[in-house]
């Protein structure tokens, strides 16, 4: 029986912005289906690591693997395509196109992957219903509340059932109650699909939602605790 392979893996990643080092030999591994919180103060490099794992940035050295593909060995177009089809992304701001309705925003990844609107629409509506925003699905994204928009962003990240989900401070702009709702939706849905979630946050209460916690400081990974939850 072979060892299970990590869904997300970083091996000794180095990255610098010009002269400033951002990541100094960082390694991590996330196993299929688990949710991992990546914490650290601002400037610790956690977002940069996330971007390397998502194929947004190319590390100077080391390997980045997500959803079964070696991202550091791909061209920019391939990484973009990989990201579209295999990864779901949720950010703090600006996930949605404000002029499109929530439904259209959620359908977008499916349509970009080639599905027809007739097939994409019911899938999107189901998700929106699960997240309890089906009643506002016809409103434009710029016209709904922050919590509703972020829930739609979660739906958009998961509508194409990606094996890996990256979230960068997804609830940073929300109040505590809305944040809890959004996070519950994200992790609950991800668990159903079996997606691995890597969540970057600087808030303890958010990190407490995840199965495992990793910390970074000054571009390096802090040693892991002996006991995990």
């Amino acid at each position, binding site marked *: 029986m072979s060892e299970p392979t990590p869904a997300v893996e970083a091996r000794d990643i180095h990255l610098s912005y010009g002269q400033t080092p951002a990541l100094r030999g960082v390694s991590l591994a996330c196993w299929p289906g688990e949710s991992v919180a990546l914490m650290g103060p601002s400037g610790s490099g956690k977002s940069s690591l996330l971007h390397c794992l998502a194929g947004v940035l190319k590390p100077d050295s080391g390997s980045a693997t997500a959803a079964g593909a070696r991202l550091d060995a791909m061209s920019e177009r391939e990484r973009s395509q990989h990201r579209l089809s295999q990864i779901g992304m949720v950010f703090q701001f600006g996930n949605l196109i404000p002029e499109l309705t929530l439904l259209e925003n959620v359908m977008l990844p499916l349509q970009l992957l080639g599905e027809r609107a007739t097939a994409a629409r019911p899938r999107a509506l189901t998700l929106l219903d699960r997240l309890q925003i089906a009643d506002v699905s016809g409103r434009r994204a710029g016209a709904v509340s922050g919590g509703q928009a972020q829930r739609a962003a979660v739906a958009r990240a998961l509508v194409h059932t990606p094996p890996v989900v990256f979230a960068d401070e997804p609830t940073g702009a929300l109040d505590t109650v809305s944040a809890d709702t959004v996070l519950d939706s994200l992790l609950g849905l991800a668990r159903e699909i079996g997606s691995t979630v890597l969540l970057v946050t600087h808030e*303890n209460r958010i990190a407490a939602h995840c199965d495992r916690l990793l910390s970074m400081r000054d571009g390096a990974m802090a040693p892991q605790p002996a006991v995990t939850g």
Partner: protein
Amino acid sequence: MSTSQALLALLESAPAHGYTLKHRYDQHFSRVTPLAFGQVYAALSRFEQQGLAKVVEVESGSGPDRRRYHITPDGVSRVDAWVSQPERPTSYSGSTLFAKVSVALMSGRSAERVLEQQRDAHMVRMRELTQRRHSASPADLLATTFELNHLDADLRWIDEAGRRLEELRDDMVGAAR
């Protein structure tokens, strides 16, 4: 706040009379509410009984404040155990944590480890509470979120203290002399 543990730790840093010990305690741990002398003397006798401390000098004159105490190796082990064991995370563990970090800094032990271990324990508790929310009744939810918020406050302090350890260390060591 386990006052006696803190007193024992203070004794570790230097032998002292009860009087001196009380003032040291007030200065480090209780600026607002000074410790009662009676509590100090009671603690010191207990230490003597338990073999955690011994009297090394008796000055002339009457009264318990004329005895000078010295910590024993057993006492040192006790302090060790106390510092290296994380507190059970409740809403009230904050002040003890504060004491432990101060003690660690004064005695040259690893304050970073204290903080890290406590952080991990807190996070485990937070995770439990977060899971519990799903099946909690509204009243339970209030209690749960109350505790979550306080744990969060502790964790924030842990982070901040962690960042200021260097300055703190210099300050503590100097004051202990």
